[in-house]
């Protein structure tokens, strides 16, 4: 299935303004409309075939190209699904050594950035958008002469990048910098793990980031690390973590997860036990933990007495017990970018014998290599006006550091940004990079794991990779692909077992391209023994001064450090915890908000106590958050977000998503403080001052709990049982009780059914596995052409997502439990929506699907009213699709719905039909697993399983038969085809088993 040699596809792709014809030439089979006067047969449609027939693609048939996701630096493998010469969807490569087959929302969304019409087209001279276009040869000539002058004068050259884990690029960097007398490559990460690397330098003698094996961790203690959503490699960690949440009846396995955190993170929502721990308490808590562990290990006590002063003394002792009991299969992680804390984490892991089992330092991670200290040094150099040339690639320092890093004082600033950003606006030259789906690249996310990226489409905008650009400047005129191949031939091929075989390099490389990655031994780190001397109890904790709050800056799953700030899908993705789209906000705990007399949506200034830096943000009252902190999301306030002004529908009372010239949210990166302390996202203090005005936050959920409002509650029915949860011990003791106590006796049917059986498509969703990461939400959006409607429409509760993730809080802030439940059309067999449609626009298929026929729909909305799950979505307007380039991301297999029709999850009917057509072509029957809906494909946790419920051998039927299986609102007897598997906490028996 995977087609891997797209060279023939690299037909000339002229600039989009005059490119209709060339695009049609490319897609092979375009349909154009031209008016034909005096003809009653409607517009003339032309069909323009390619001049050259291609063996590779047949118009209308999808093909897949293996590549590596560029959404962040984790290096997940992706298959780009292409139709007619263009990628339309990214899917994880099943069995990929990093991601294992899933994809996160940012990864799913990154295909849209390819079709960003505001990207740079070729080099620009002068500041950002105001610059003038220059040809590549002119730019190279001028810049080379400037470099020559620098080489003569011995000027200082700095290359500032994000994590570069591409070996071929690193080689090109080295070659380029070698030509200068004083040249350095500096890297940093917007979401920094610098302290983890530094801590290992102290404890293991090598600056490295170990690989975390959550799939081996039976006990996990996480201190503020959001490893299921944004921390280092969330897709991989989710896949690993959920492997130990396997609750099939034949193999009950469950890890125990403690989360001690200040804000309410997605990871915290999953934890078996979660407590609120302020950032300044983490050191003390970790020291206490180490104290306990030392005691159990019976070694010299370096943290003696810390246990007595630690917060949550009893809990820490219990965590230590549980960790110790599973030592060798335990894992302690901390999110803080603080070397002292990370040293303690290393120490705890060392005591727990995690190194070599749950932590791999041999095949160390290269997903985050940035070093905060180097940035601080660069800032110093810039401040001294001693940098003559600064080349910035892959990061946006002007956004991340603002005035702390005086970029404008560099002698010459060259930005490699693909699209205008804060840094390119300051640059003397912009030498744009292509999108990762247009370019060759390689990556080594873990030592020994070599991933390849290849172009899936000819360059839509003229750009050049850093590797090619630097090689050009270093005098190497080879094309990018040749540079990459040369590096692989010289460096990697000799290490492969294929080297000894007869097939040669081309076969090796083609195989790597086909798979998307290759595993090679021989490139590993060699850390030293654990240096006990590096360990000392944490001392430098500082509680906030009176009147101030601890400031916690965190990334959101869609925006991360702001690199996806121009992606409308990710902006409209509701945060998995707060359920708010289109904004960042200052999160305060309910108690604190009450104390400060603030309520949801009130605008406040968050002012750092040290520098007085401030941002103005609306308040979000976040349950489960520590009372002593204010949490603000990074990644917002990007310039260029004013592009979303005209995003949604325009009408009488419509409000723009962002005011003309404004930005979405506010940039909280500017609050991180001085560079020399590292990029500490949780170590600042801030005061929160009300400004007096307020805004509405675009939340997709109004009621946040399964408990109905108190004054309306009927006795005995205060809590609804949409999400059933239980504890592991209850499940083990009485597996049948879990769901049964919610069951409603079935009174039988009123009528005999006329309908045939054979196939009933169904879905099973394991709530114990689902983390709420929302990868499925964006996957669904990409697959099904779900429109983006803009902030105002979300505010009016008209978001269009077919698949939403319901989030319910239960319990008080101290013992907050958060339940996530993916909710999409339940494809009911007795669908209430079907009987109410007057025009038969929604009815049942012979295969048990609830079909929605857009072209028949007249839009009465009766079906949506009567749907008990409220999963139907109505096209309130013709949502603007004026960006013709962006429209190329549309899936041609799914109708783009017009105004006034209802739509909803179809179980990816286009994929069902495709699989059936292929099976029929191959003359065989459908097999279980032939059909994978977009949400299932995307799910890193493998929480979603699709198949034929009537085939007892199918995976979905087996799950549906599980003792944890139930359907939502079973008592209505609408007979949904989606089965949920009860959520299980790893906890002791409760009396009875009151899950919720």
């Amino acid at each position: 299935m995977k087609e891997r040699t797209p060279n023939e596809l690299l037909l000339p792709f002229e600039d989009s303004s005059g490119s209709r014809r060339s695009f049609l030439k490319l897609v092979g089979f375009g349909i154009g409309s031209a008016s034909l006067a005096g003809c009653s047969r409607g517009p003339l449609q032309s069909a323009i075939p390619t001049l050259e027939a291609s063996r590779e693609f047949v118009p209308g048939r999808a093909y897949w190209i293996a590549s590596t996701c560029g959404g962040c630096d984790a290096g997940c493998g992706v298959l780009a699904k292409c139709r007619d010469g263009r990628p339309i969807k990214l899917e994880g490569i099943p069995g990929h050594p990093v991601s294992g087959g899933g994809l996160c929302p940012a990864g799913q969304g990154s295909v849209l950035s390819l079709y960003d019409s505001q990207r740079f087209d070729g080099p620009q001279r002068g500041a950002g958008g105001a610059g003038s276009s220059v040809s590549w040869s002119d730019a190279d000539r001028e810049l080379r002469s400037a470099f020559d002058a620098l080489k003569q004068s011995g000027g200082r050259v700095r290359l500032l990048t994000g994590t570069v884990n591409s070996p071929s690029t690193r080689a090109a960097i080295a070659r380029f910098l070698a030509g200068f007398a004083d040249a350095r490559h500096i890297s940093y990460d917007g979401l920094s793990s610098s302290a983890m690397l530094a801590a290992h330098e102290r404890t293991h003698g090598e600056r490295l980031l170990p690989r975390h094996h959550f799939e081996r961790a039976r006990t996990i203690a996480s201190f503020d690390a959001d490893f299921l959503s944004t921390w280092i490699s969330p897709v991989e960690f989710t896949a690993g973590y959920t492997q130990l949440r396997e609750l099939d009846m034949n193999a009950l396995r469950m890890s125990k997860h403690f989360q001690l955190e200040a804000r309410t993170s997605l990871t915290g929502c999953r934890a078996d036990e979660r407590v609120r721990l302020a950032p300044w308490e983490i050191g003390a808590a970790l020291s206490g933990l180490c104290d306990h562990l030392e005691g159990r290990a019976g070694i010299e006590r370096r943290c003696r007495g810390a246990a007595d002063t630690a917060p949550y003394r009893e809990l820490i002792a219990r965590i230590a017990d549980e960790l110790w009991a599973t030592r060798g299969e335990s894992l302690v992680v901390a999110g803080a970018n603080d070397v002292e804390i990370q040293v303690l984490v290393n120490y705890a892991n060392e005591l727990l014998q995690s190194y070599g089992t749950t932590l791999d330092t041999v095949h160390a991670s290269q997903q985050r290599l940035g070093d905060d200290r180097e940035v601080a040094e660069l800032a110093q150099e810039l401040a001294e006006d001693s940098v003559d040339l600064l080349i910035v690639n892959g990061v946006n320092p002007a956004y991340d550091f603002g005035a702390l890093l005086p970029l404008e004082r560099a002698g010459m600033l060259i930005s490699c940004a693909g699209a205008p950003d804060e840094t390119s606006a300051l640059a003397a030259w912009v030498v744009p990079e292509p999108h990762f789906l247009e370019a060759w690249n390689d990556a080594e996310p873990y030592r020994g794991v070599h991933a390849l990226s290849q172009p899936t489409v000819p360059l839509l905008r003229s750009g050049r990779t850093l590797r090619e650009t630097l090689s050009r400047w270093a005098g190497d005129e080879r094309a990018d692909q040749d540079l990459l191949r040369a590096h692989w031939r010289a460096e990697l091929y000799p290490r492969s077992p294929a080297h000894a075989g007869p097939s040669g390099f081309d076969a090796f490389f083609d195989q790597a391209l086909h798979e998307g990655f290759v595993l090679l031994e021989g490139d590993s780190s060699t850390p030293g023994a654990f240096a006990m001397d590096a360990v000392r109890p944490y001392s430098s904790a500082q509680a906030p001064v009176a009147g101030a709050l601890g400031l916690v800056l965190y990334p959101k799953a869609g925006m991360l450090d702001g690199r996806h700030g121009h992606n409308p899908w990710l902006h409209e993705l509701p945060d998995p915890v707060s359920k708010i789209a289109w904004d960042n906000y200052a999160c305060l705990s309910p108690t604190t908000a009450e104390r400060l007399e603030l309520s949801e949506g009130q605008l406040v200034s968050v002012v750092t106590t040290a520098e007085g830096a401030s941002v103005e943000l609306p308040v979000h009252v976040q349950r489960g958050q520590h009372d002593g902190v204010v949490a603000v999301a990074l990644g917002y306030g990007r310039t260029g977000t004013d592009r979303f002004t005209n995003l949604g529908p325009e009408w009488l009372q419509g409000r723009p998503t962002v005011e003309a010239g404004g930005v979405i949210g506010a940039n909280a990166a500017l609050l991180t403080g001085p560079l020399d302390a590292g990029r500490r996202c949780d170590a600042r203090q801030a005061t929160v001052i009300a400004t007096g005005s307020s805004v509405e936050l675009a939340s997709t959920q109004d009621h946040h709990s399964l408990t109905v409002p108190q004054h309306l509650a009927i006795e005995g029915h205060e809590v609804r049982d949409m999400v059933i949860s239980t504890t592991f011990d209850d499940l083990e003791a009485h597996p049948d009780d879990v769901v049964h106590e919610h069951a409603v006796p079935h009174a039988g049917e009123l009528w005999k059914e006329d309908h045939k059986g054979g196939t009933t498509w169904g879905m099973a969703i394991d709530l114990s596995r689902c983390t709420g990461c929302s990868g499925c939400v964006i996957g669904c959006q990409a697959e099904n052409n779900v429109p983006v409607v803009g902030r105002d429409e979300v505010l009016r509760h008209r978001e269009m997502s077919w698949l939403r993730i319901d989030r319910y809080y239960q319990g008080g802030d101290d013992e907050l439990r958060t339940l996530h439940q993916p909710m999409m059309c339940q494809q009911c067999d007795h669908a209430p929506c079907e009987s109410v449609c007057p025009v038969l626009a929604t009815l049942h298929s012979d295969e048990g699907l609830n079909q929605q026929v857009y072209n028949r729909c007249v839009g009465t909305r009766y079906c949506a009213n009567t749907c008990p799950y409220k999963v139907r979505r109505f096209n309130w307007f013709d949502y603007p699709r004026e960006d013709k380039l962006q429209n190329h991301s549309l899936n041609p297999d799914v109708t783009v719905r017009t105004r006034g029709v209802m739509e909803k999850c179809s179980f990816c009917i286009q994929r069902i039909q495709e699989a059936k057509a292929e099976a029929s072509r191959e003359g065989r029957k459908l097999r279980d697993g032939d059909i994978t809906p977009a949400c299932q494909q995307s799910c890193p946790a493998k929480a979603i399983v699709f198949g034929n419920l009537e085939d007892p051998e199918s995976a979905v039927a087996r799950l549906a038969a599980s003792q944890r299986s139930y359907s939502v609102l079973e008592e209505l007897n609408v007979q949904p085809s989606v089965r949920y598997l009860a959520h299980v906490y790893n906890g002791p028996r409760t009396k009875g088993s009151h899950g919720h």
Partner: protein
Amino acid sequence: MTYRNTKILIVCMLLLGALVLAQDTDIRLPGNNQGYEPEQPIAFSHRLHAGELNIDCQFCHYGAESSRHAGIPSASVCMNCHKTVTAKFDTVLIERELAEVEGRDPRRIISPELRKLYDAVGLDENLQPTAEGGTPIEWVRVHNLPDFVYFDHRVHVARDLACETCHGPVGSMERMRQFADLSMGWCVQCHRDTPAIPGGPAEDHASTDCAACHY
């Protein structure tokens, strides 16, 4: 009263006349393009290729087997044959005889319609590539389905359905014509009448689910 009766009679006759006239002028409901036979940029003859020469449909429309779309063949597919076949055989024969008589090498005869093909692929008089290259041929689509209908050739070819069932006697059409009305009722009727694959969800006929075509 007779006067009124006459009036009624006249009106009835007029209505009847209008109906008869409507039959003749081939008036049909909007959206029904049955019989559509647009002029094409190159006067390609299906009668010659599919009829007389009996070339398999899928030789050119090879997408029908593996894709939703049967596809309009690329010019390069035409060139497989028309690299050598440049004009009608009899004109070539005449030239050959003439050349023999005149004692010279026969000239290459290129028919005016094939000239358009060579222009499109960018070949000069001697069938050598020109500097400008070619421009794709803009054929006029004959069979147009609305955007919300997903017809899949692949499945129908796999079920050994003859192309003529829907496309009509293509082998006798000089210019391609829409044979069927391509209405939903026409599709559905065939699906009702066609026995299904045994073991499929609907045992007695091909799927008449909405989602067979609309999604």
